[in-house]
Structure formats: C-alpha cells, structure tokens
C-alpha cells in the first residue's frame, strides 16, 4: 500500500496548561476523503489546528513523507495544505473576489490563478454573482462556500475542513458536500473532514476515525463505522 499522504503519530496538543489531545494517531491516503468524528470538545478542531501549527503540536506529523510538526503555519500552507477553519475565517471587510485572490497568495503561476477563478465560479455560481460584494454581507451558506473556494484557490494537495456544516440548512450542506465529492474525484484533492454531523460526514467519506476526549477510539472504513452499534447509538441516533 502506498505511504499515506498525511501520517500523524502520537500527537499531543493543548492550550496552555490544558491538554486536549492525548496521543492521536491516524493516516490519510492520497486522494481519499477521511473524516474525524466526535462530540463537542473531543479534540477534533484542536487536531486540525495542530496540523497547521496554529497550536503547538507535540508528536510526529508527516505530510508527503516530510516532517512538518516544527514548521510555521505560513510554511505549511506553502506545502499545499489549505485549512478552512471553524467559523470560516472570512475576510469580512474585503470583497468576495479579494478573498479568493488571497487564497492564491502563495502561488507563483499567475495565469493559472486567473483560470482558477473561472473554475471556482463554475463550482459555485452564486459566488460569481457576488464577486464584488463585501464578504461579510454574504449569507452563511455563501460564506462557507467562499471559505472552501478560498482554500481551493491554493490548488492544495490536502484540504482541511473544520465543521463546514455548522449553522447551515441541510439542503445547503448536501449541495456543498456533493461539490466536495466532485472536487475530490476530479482534481484528486485529498480531504480531511472534521464534523459533528456524523451521518452526512460518513456518507461523504471513505475512511473515518472516532475521537473521544483526545484519543482515537474507533477507526475503519466509513461503511464499517456507520454500521458500528456504539456509533449508531451515540452519534447516528438509531
């Protein structure tokens, strides 16, 4: 089996004196969609933050074979990891188009960047309509699409998504997730998806990990995890 694109071994992280992650290990194969599930406070967001060095990671994180756990966020971005944070992190005072342009900030291929605008507007026509509008005035669903698009403008190898379904109507989430599936298949963008909405996440993902109080307690293919009785009872509600 090929080496995983992202390989995390024994990751510890926390905020000040509070330890949140107590030795998480997981892997993500290139081209796959993997989801981290768990309840509020389990450590899912902290995991994504540690991957991007927004919190200091202790442990081994390998991306494409290279250790990245001692690098700065700005350098990790340049390796091809795009993070759509909790709360979307939109630049609310800038326009939609400026937000997208910032997503491509580190790229050197200017011509391809212009083409990518068309590609992104193709996936999200509503953003095209609002391209000169101030991003803070977009609806919740549109801001989420903008956040994902901004990340895609990087042409990342790996896309990190932190609770993209938060605060969105189910219909919008379904639309968003189907676009994510398309992007994953068509452009080979690997996706690490953190979600509280276990049902929708397991429908989208190939692999799943369940995190409880900072530890991985269950892992497997999405189908297997979906059928697991404990998961069904606690997270799927049936």
């Amino acid at each position, binding site marked *: 089996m090929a080496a995983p694109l992202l390989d995390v071994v024994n990751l510890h992280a926390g905020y000040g004196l509070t330890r949140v992650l107590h030795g998480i290990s997981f892997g993500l194969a290139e081209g796959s969609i993997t989801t981290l599930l768990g309840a509020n406070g389990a450590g899912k967001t902290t995991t994504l933050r540690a991957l991007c060095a927004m919190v200091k990671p202790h442990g081994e994180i390998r991306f494409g074979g290279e250790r990245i756990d001692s690098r700065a966020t700005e350098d990790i*971005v340049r390796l091809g990891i795009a993070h759509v944070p909790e709360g979307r*992190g939109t*630049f609310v*005072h800038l326009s939609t188009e400026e937000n997208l342009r*910032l997503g491509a*900030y*580190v790229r050197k291929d200017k011509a391809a960047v212009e083409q990518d605008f068309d590609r992104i507007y193709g996936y999200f026509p509503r953003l095209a309509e609002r391209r000169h509008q101030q991003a803070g005035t977009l609806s919740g669903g549109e801001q989420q699409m903008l956040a994902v698009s901004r990340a895609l403008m990087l042409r990342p190898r790996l896309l990190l998504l932190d609770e993209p379904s938060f605060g969105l109507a189910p219909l919008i989430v379904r639309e968003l997730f189907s676009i994510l599936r398309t992007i994953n298949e068509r452009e080979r963008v690997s996706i690490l998806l953190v979600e509280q909405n276990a049902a929708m996440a397991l429908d989208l993902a190939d692999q799943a990990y369940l995190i409880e109080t900072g530890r991985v307690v269950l892992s497997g293919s999405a189908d297997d995890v979906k059928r697991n009785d404990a998961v069904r009872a606690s997270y799927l509600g049936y």
Partner: protein
Amino acid sequence: METFLHQVVAGLASGGIYASVALALVMIHQATHLLNFAQGEMAMFSTYIAWALINAGVPYWAAFCLTIAFAFALGLAVQHFIMRNIRSTSVLPFVIVFIGLIVICNSVAGWIFTYTIKEFPSPFPKEPLFGQRFLSSHELGAISVTLVVLIMLWAFFRFTSLGLAMRAAAQNPGSSRLVGIRVAWMLALGWGLAASVGAIAGMMVAPIVYLDPNMMSGILLYAFAAALIGGVDSPGGAVVGGFLVGVLENVLGAYVVGNELKLLVALVLIIGVLLVKPSGLFGSVQVTRV
C-alpha cells in the same frame, strides 16, 4: 470675504499635512489597534535627516527619496525590534513605549542637531504660481505632493497583491496565516510605510513652520483630531478629516479664538469627538464581546 477664502485655502494646505500624518496613524491603528503617539517625532527626526543630507550638498529630490528610505527603515526597525516584543493585554506598556520613543527621538534630534531653529528648503519656486494671491507655491506644492502620495497609497492597497495582503493581515491575522501571509512582515511593512508618509509630511511642513525638535507636537495633535473625526479605522476618513481640521483650525484661529489658542481647537476637537462620536464620521462602531 477674500481673507476668509484665503484662510480656507491656507487651511487646505495645512490640512494636507494633517491628512498625511492622520493617514499614517490610521494605518498603524488598523493593523495593531494602537495609536502611535510617536508618529510625529519619528517624522520630525526623518526631516532632520533630510536637512542634514541637503546641507551636505545632496540635491533636494535625491535627499527627499533617501529620507523616505530612511524613514521606512526606521519604522520597520521600531516595529521589529521594539513593538513586536511587547506582549500585553493592557495598552499601558505600549503607551509607555510610545512615550519613550517620543522622548528619545526628540532628545537625540536635539543632541545631534541642537535646538536652534533651522530653515528647511522648499523645492517649489518662491513666486506664487499662476499669479494668484491665495496660495504660495509651496502651499500648492505641498497639497499636490500630499494628494499624489495619498493616491499612490490608495492604488497600492487597492490593486497590488502585497497591498491586499497587508490589508488582510491588518484585519484578520489568523486567517492571513492560513493563506500563507507572513503577518509579522506585513506589520513591519505597515510601520515602514506609515513612517515614510510621516516623513513626507514633515518635509512639506518644515519650510513653513521651520525645523526644530518640537515642530511636530502640535501637528500630531491636529492629526489625531483628524483621524478621530474621520474614523480611526478609515483611511479615507483620515484624509477628509485632515482637510477639515486644517480649515477649521485656520478659520477658528482667525475669527474666534485668536492665533495663540489655535492648539485649543485641536484639544476641543479631540475631546469632543471622543465623547460624542468616538467612531468618527466614517468609522464603524466597535462591539466588544464580553
């Protein structure tokens, strides 16, 4: 009527200076939420450097450009070596450092260049242009230079990728990191630019008020008033505020309070705006989450 018009127009000339310094203040406030009390003294010090260069025989516009470069480096250095290393939730340590900077700039200028008032040359001709009587050439030149600088800055922030990155870093440093922007460098650049703008203002005002270490303290107050009136987060507001304050100062100074009390106008404006409408004309109200 003619004198009134003259006061208004002269007010526009000084207003351009206030607008420039106010813009520098707003730039730093946008990026750091700090009011750079030392903006004026840094500009004054840079102007002294210009004077020294010119005195050593360097032609005016070459000295102008070299001074801008010096001011840029000064601003960058202050941010990188001093401001960056202060971690505090309260503003007091920052205010203390700003006062320290003021005092150092002022005293070093006095020490190197002495406290005697010096003449600073103007690059513009002595005779009024176009034969009119409202504006001296220098005043006209100062307004023009101010406007050119403001337009260039606007274009820089609006159309270049670096300008966009700086705006982003000022508004949302967390998200900026996530797109790969090196936020610390952006801050340093912002300080450098602000210091350069201040230096240009200093060089434009020195021919009028003569060069001495205390040259900028009054101007700083007017610039603060302008920044507050325009809205301390709005660059456009700072510019409008600057011209407004310049005209108000001149008109009120001529007809209401008399020339010795002109600075009182700045004081009243500052306190008035802070009490009545702290967000200014164009700024947004800050809501703090508990």
